[in-house]
């Protein structure tokens, strides 16, 4: 089989020639996947010289269609031979011969960018969230993070917290019935838009998660967390200015602060990973007989899992966190993200298998629903910047992505 590609603006036309049978289907599939990974969202598959298609080929057409549909793209077939057309018609995929966007073009009603700017290495397009009602999110500290260092947690520190759609959270917690039940499982978690992901200390590849639906609101047992309430007034799309230019986390925080006109922001970022640097617990930290065990070498290796090299390349991440320039207010809860130590942050990142992300303005909750549909997170990492000059793994970086952001105001802890 021969495959040729023509790129015309945002559209990619791919010509296939020969037989699309089981022998060649996976070849075409990986070719299409690679094309989508490179950013193509509207793909036209020209079947003019395709002589034969088997069910293996049909399956590739269908999975590609689904992938691009979930990314708000399009996948259209053209010029099939009568034989190929009749097979595709008979399996009910004849709708693929029509560009579905033409019938339901909604670009008029979607928000358009209000601002674009290039700041090396990234290029950012900024949108306003038309349904946002607040100018800033209200954040507060729940519990005592310092107990991790000074003497550990007891049952009285643990509280059951609900995470409705408008609550964000990142901290130390677990799913379960009360403190005793969660003792062996406490780890990092993130909560955003009714989706809660908890690190699983005994198998790092399978974090547990809960999704709020209709009247169900996820609940987690929390030892401490930073929690925010409100929506995100701003949305931005970003990508490297050139192929191979990756966007460090600090740059996303930096631009988010500029977009929000604030020196402390929260963000929820969905992006294609170039490399994540971060740690997770290997054992529930409340099991430590003495907190020094967790923080001193070499016993730290029994408690903390850390990769000294960027990981998860090619995956999708949902990174939720805060970024700030205010050393005074958030010092106990943030750490430097960039080498200049001018941008501080606290970010937890859930990792998912690759799937193409849509372009243009999007609603956070809708995006998360698509993200969690039919696939599960494969990791949860507390991102850090390893700024050791020679041996350091540096910052986490994304190739491209989208990000919802909001200014934050800090309030005193409210008891729940």
């Amino acid at each position: 089989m021969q495959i040729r590609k023509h790129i015309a603006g945002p559209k990619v036309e791919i010509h296939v020639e020969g037989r699309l049978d089981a022998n060649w289907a996976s070849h075409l599939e990986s070719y299409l996947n690679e094309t989508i990974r490179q950013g193509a969202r509207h793909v036209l598959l020209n079947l003019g010289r395709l002589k034969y298609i088997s069910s293996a080929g049909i399956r590739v057409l269908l999975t590609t269609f689904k992938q691009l549909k979930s990314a708000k793209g399009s996948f259209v077939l053209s010029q099939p031979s009568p034989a190929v057309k009749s097979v595709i018609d008979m399996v009910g995929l004849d709708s693929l011969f029509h560009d579905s966007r033409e019938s339901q073009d909604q670009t008029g009603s979607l928000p358009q960018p209000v601002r674009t700017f290039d700041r090396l290495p990234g290029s950012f397009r900024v949108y306003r969230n038309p349904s946002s009602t607040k100018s800033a999110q209200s954040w507060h500290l729940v519990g005592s993070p310092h107990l991790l260092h000074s003497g550990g947690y007891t049952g009285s520190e643990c509280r059951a917290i609900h995470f409705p759609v408008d609550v964000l959270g990142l901290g130390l917690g677990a799913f379960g019935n009360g403190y005793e039940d969660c003792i062996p499982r406490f780890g990092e978690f993130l909560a955003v838009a009714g989706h809660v992901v908890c690190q699983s200390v005994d198998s790092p590849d399978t974090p547990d998660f809960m999704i709020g639906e209709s009247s169900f609101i996820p609940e987690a047992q929390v030892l401490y967390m930073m929690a925010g309430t409100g929506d995100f007034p701003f949305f931005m799309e970003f990508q490297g200015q050139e192929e191979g230019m990756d966007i460090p986390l600090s740059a996303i925080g930096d631009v988010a602060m500029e977009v929000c006109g604030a020196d402390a922001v929260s963000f929820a970022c969905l992006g294609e990973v170039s490399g994540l640097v971060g740690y997770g617990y290997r054992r529930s930290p409340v099991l430590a007989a003495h907190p020094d065990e967790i923080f001193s070498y070499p016993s730290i290796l029994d408690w903390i899992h850390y990769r000294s090299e960027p990981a998860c390349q090619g995956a999708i991440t949902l990174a939720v966190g805060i970024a700030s320039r205010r050393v005074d207010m958030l010092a106990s809860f943030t750490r430097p993200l960039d080498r200049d130590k001018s941008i501080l942050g606290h970010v937890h990142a859930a990792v998912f298998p690759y799937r193409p992300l849509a372009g243009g303005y999007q609603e956070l909750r809708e995006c998360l629903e698509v993200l969690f549909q039919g696939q599960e997170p494969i990791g949860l990492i507390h991102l850090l910047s390893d700024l050791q000059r020679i041996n350091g793994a540096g910052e986490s970086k994304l190739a491209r992505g989208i990000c919802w952001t909001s200014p934050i105001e800090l309030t005193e802890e409210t008891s729940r």
Partner: protein
Amino acid sequence: MNSPKAAAPPMLDLHGVRKVFHPGTPYKVVALDGISLEVEKGSFVIIIGTNGSGKSALLNAIAGSVPFESGRISLMGRDITGWPEHLRSKYIGRVFQNPLMGTITELTVAENLVLSSSRSTLRSLRTAVTRRSMNDIKDRVASLKLGLETRLNEKMGALSGGQRQALTLLMATWTGPDLLLLDEHTAALDPKSAELVLHLSEQIISHERMTAIMVTHSIQQAVNLGDRLVMMHRGRIAHDDTGPDKQRLRVRELLSRFEMIRCGEQVDQNAAVMLAEQII
């Protein structure tokens, strides 16, 4: 999951077993770093770990092939810490990686088997291969279903590695030992023979309800065999899964555990200081 502890002592009980190679030299290696491990009767434990993690040192400590610095080992409630290897071998059967180690090349198959069957009672080459013992041997060898019962008078050296290892397995379990140690016993075999010997091992262990400890390099074997999985690293037990936790383990998860261990190896003291500062 916390089932009430049986009143009977565990089949094997290791407490704080420590073994150091080349102590007091720059080449000092802590092979076993105070290992404690209880193995219940009838349990089939798989031990997996990176090179130098202490897997074989652990089997050697149990079998008594090398002395260790400190700690205690009990078998069926008897303290065997001070027992020499040949005394322990009365109760502990062992199969090594090298098929040549378990059998004597120059003797016939039957002679090898008689030698091992008399291990716990009388160890003498003068023991004749009597008609009665010959019939017994024939039956047992036939149970392997390898057709070796017709080759009992051939020299052991004439058999393939897989056949020899199968016979070694038979010999190691002949007298119904309290504990069977399998030390990467299929690593030196071709894939087909390895599959055969593994199958036989599983059959014998489950049929005789034997307590067994098997060291392996193969993640696939670790996933598919046994009811308990102990993962070792640097002379310590890094993971210990049993029951449903063992059953749910898959290759991907074990690979990720090895990957975590690899990552941990790369974290030096400086990185650890950096890391400790970042933990919130």
